[in-house]
């Protein structure tokens, strides 16, 4: 603020001195946020930028063993991989078709999620829908479940003979689902939409709550109808939140792997993340790097769009912290239909998937609903015929070990992430050097764009070697925690920024003028005031970390087995009952964590999405 001197002041000698580089530099260096920002830049440069760059470099450097194919020594520059992906006879199959598929699936699910989420959000905030507070928490649940669990539930219900094997539930009930319903783009889009709708609901309810009700009332006084008020006042004011949601969903859909893998393969439907996985599993790291680079690029475009609209959003304040009395609109005869619709959404997105999973763990043969088929063996039984995992999930030592690992590792990572996010927010909002803040924001958002699989591979190759003072971290729990921190920084920094934006300067400056040092101020003034935001900023990383798979599957070792890697191991063995049971436990942990944080800190998941 000291830097933006009005035009007329610039000509006086005093103003000249104030504007000089020396003076400005002094101010910048004096402010503690600058030093903090530089430190954070170094940390994130090591944790985020370095792996991403090494990943992208792999696209143009000859890898081990490819010397013969590329005609050059390992490590030298080559266009071989670029050529193969973009302009070879198989490019269509490994790149262009999957790219098109990825794009239109992401777009469709984004549109559907918006179309579903916005009206539901409005119903929850602005009307007198019965049980709307309960629905507000209940409808968020699908976002906390890993998307691939939806895919598993879908195949349990809708599988048909095209993949042979066990019968699906529909088949046992006598109806054979057609191919287009059982596998391929249709179920993928449905599942993405169901998974992203809570995201939209969260963001839009948050924005709606902060929308000043006066504008709406003023329009009503002037005689505008409900329709007009919706389309010309509410929706335009929601534009920043909607665009933010849309771009974030788009970037997430591009990188999502599990769903497309489970549902796309039987129909021969490829997306970029599945071809990426194919290249990684056949040791073709050059091709993998090129595809990952394209995915990062696509996500980067959506990031630019998001940043641009975030800047525009600052033009009008919706967050003014004043308590506004928003009148809820009575629904009258629309009450029941609205309730049915919201209830229906809850049933389809929460009850059915979770219910299917839970039921599948207590039924011996899938689809057989007769009483003798139900058993609690897979939960609490002993000496099961499945040799590799012969205890029920709740009594097996492996489960508890994995659960403990998950809780402490993900918990620690989430705490660090939340704190770092707040610090980033502090630097962004308080530092007189705006570029520092922007640089931090861009860097901490990068992991969102990088597919988890590729990020993990880059981490493995980078941190195996000691660099300077940092020892080789490979094989330790540290590397898992570090990668989880890096991966969750995008939302943590957004949460941190929006939390800090709400904080007024007055308390801090009062402490400063009383002589408090920076660290003391931070500890005793800033952090306590934003503690509920800190809790929120910790909550989302915790929930994501508990269900994250692609990141950790490469880096975890038997001593550091997490719940998600345990369920993958069980799936590998084909022990579907045990695997589904572990997934149910994962969901339970995520839900419990959210509920506990909400109760203890009165925090809100919406705050953490910025």
């Amino acid at each position: 603020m000291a830097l933006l001197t009005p035009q007329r002041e610039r000509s006086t000698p005093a103003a000249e001195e104030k504007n000089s580089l020396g003076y400005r530099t002094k101010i910048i260096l004096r402010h503690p946020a600058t030093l903090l920002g530089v430190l954070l830049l170094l940390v994130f440069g090591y944790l985020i930028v370095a792996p991403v760059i090494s990943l992208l470099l792999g696209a143009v450097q000859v890898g081990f063993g490819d010397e013969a194919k590329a005609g050059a020594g390992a490590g030298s520059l080559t266009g071989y991989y670029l050529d193969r992906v973009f302009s070879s006879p198989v490019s269509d199959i490994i790149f262009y078709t999957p790219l098109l598929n990825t794009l239109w699936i992401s777009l469709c699910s984004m549109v559907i999620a918006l179309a579903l989420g916005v009206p539901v959000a409005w119903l929850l905030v602005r009307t007198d829908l019965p049980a709307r507070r309960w629905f507000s928490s209940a409808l968020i649940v699908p976002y906390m479940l890993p998307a691939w669990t939806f895919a598993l539930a879908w195949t349990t219900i809708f599988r048909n003979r095209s993949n042979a094997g066990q019968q699906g539930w529909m088949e046992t009930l006598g109806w054979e689902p057609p191919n287009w319903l059982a596998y391929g783009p249709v179920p993928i889009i449905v599942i993405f939409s169901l998974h992203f709708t809570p995201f939209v609901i969260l963001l839009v309810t948050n924005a709606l709550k902060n929308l000043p009700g006066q504008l709406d009332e003023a329009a009503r006084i002037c005689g505008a109808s409900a329709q007009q008020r919706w389309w010309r006042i509410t929706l335009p004011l929601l534009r920043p939140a909607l665009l933010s949601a849309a771009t974030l969903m788009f970037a997430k859909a591009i990188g999502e792997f599990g769903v497309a893998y489970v549902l796309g393969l039987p129909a021969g439907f490829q997306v970029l993340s599945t071809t990426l996985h194919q290249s990684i599993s056949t040791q073709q790291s050059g091709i993998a790097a090129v595809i990952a680079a394209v995915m990062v690029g696509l996500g980067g475009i959506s990031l630019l769009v998001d940043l641009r609209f975030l800047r525009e959003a600052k033009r009008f304040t919706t967050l003014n912290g004043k308590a506004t009395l928003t009148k809820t609109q009575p629904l009258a005869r629309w009450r029941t239909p609205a309730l049915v619709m919201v209830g229906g959404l809850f049933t389809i997105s929460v009850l059915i998937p979770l219910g299917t999973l839970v039921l599948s763990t207590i039924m011996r043969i899938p689809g057989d609903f007769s009483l003798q088929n139900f058993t609690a063996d897979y939960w609490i039984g002993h000496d099961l015929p499945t040799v590799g995992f012969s205890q029920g999930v709740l009594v097996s030592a492996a489960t508890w070990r994995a659960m403990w690992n998950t809780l402490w590792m993900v918990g620690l990572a989430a705490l660090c992430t939340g704190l770092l996010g707040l610090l980033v927010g502090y630097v962004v909002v308080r530092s007189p050097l705006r570029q520092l803040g922007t640089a931090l924001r861009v860097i901490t958002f990068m992991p969102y764009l990088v597919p988890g699989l590729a990020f993990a591979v880059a981490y493995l190759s980078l941190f195996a070697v000691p660099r300077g003072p940092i020892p080789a971290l490979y094989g330790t729990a540290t590397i898992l925690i570090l990668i989880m921190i890096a991966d969750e920084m995008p939302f943590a920094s957004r949460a941190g920024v929006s939390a800090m934006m709400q904080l007024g300067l007055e308390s801090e400056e009062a402490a400063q003028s009383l002589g408090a040092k920076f660290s003391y101020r931070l500890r005793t003034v800033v952090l306590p005031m934003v503690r509920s935001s800190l809790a929120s900023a910790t909550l989302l990383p915790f929930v994501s970390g508990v269900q994250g798979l692609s990141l950790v599957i490469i880096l975890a070792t038997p001593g550091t087995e997490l719940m998600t890697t345990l369920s993958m191991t069980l799936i590998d063995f084909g022990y579907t009952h045990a695997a589904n049971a572990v997934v149910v436990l994962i969901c339970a942990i995520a839900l419990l964590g959210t509920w506990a944080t909400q109760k203890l800190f009165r925090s809100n998941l919406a705050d953490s999405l910025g």
Partner: protein
Amino acid sequence: MSIIRTHRWTTVLSLGLGAVLFTGCAGGAPAATTSSAPATASAEDFDLDQLIEAAKAEGPITIYDSTSKIEKMAAAFTKTYGIEATGVKADAAEAIEKVTREAQSGNVVGDVVAISDLPAVKNQLLPNNFVTNWVPADLAENIDSSMQEPLVVITDPSFWTYNTEAFDTCPATNIWDFTTEKFTKKVAFQDPVGDNGALDWYSQMEQFGDQELHDAYKEAFGEELKTDKESAAAEWVSRMAANQPILTKSSEEASEAVGATGQDDPPMALMSSAKYRNIDEKGYALGVCEGLVPWVGKASPKSLTIASGTKSPNAAKLFVHFALTQEGIDPQISDGKISSNSSVKQPEDPANVGDHLKEIFQFDNAGLETDWASREKWQDLWRTSSKK
């Protein structure tokens, strides 16, 4: 206006500078390390007792293997020799990555590595001296020369399998039957595009089994094979891809597709012999397709090599020796794997692997370079031939 432009340029420049700076920290060209490596071949006068003495004087060892049985094997090793051994489950891609990174960082954790991706071992790990190959001299005569460089510890058989509940005998008699209309959408196996084992098998068939495929074709269709592809193997792969097989994510899924009971018209599958345990564990109905011409299945090798930078080379060698003996390899062969040591007796297992030893296709190490170089070719052939 100009201030804003300057700010923008500063931002871009500083970001760019930061990126360039961190490129220095980023992984540069992978560099091979040189280190003292134990001898690749063993001496004539090999003394097992001497090796045991030397091994006991060294520290504990860790073994990477793709099967969870390695934990049992390590425990048995510790019990027999008193040297602490830990078995760690790591699939081929993971193990290769770990061995490479450990060798580069000088922080070797895995002393002995069992990797089922032999072309990678031969073309990535051995030439860069990340691992060394060692064959115990006292057992070398029982190990076929095609399995010594790199040393193969076991071969993992996969069989063509049918559903014994729906069929009395195998519905197919010839490998070319799977390419006919009778078997459209009725053959299940793991997606070859993502499965190195399948790609290597096609390459090995082309190099060492092409004549048998030609003969089998004549037997099946009564005429000589005429093809514009390079080999009978390529023609078979191309026709298989076009015949709309059921592609699964794993051998486990393939076993479910063929073996689940209550199906009217179940498919056949090519699946690992280990999955035959599902007959007991899950009640599946699985049977080996007896008499299939020319091969009833294939046997994919798994190599056992020693990390070059290991701090316990003698203990590592002792483990390699142990893994080639009857008691050492027992946990794996009772599951259906076959030891490369021909003097090791094959125990009973659900797939009766012992009865089929002569009828499965064996890989040959001599073809490893070609296998490595032609993986993309087979991927491309599959992709361009498949029809959905």
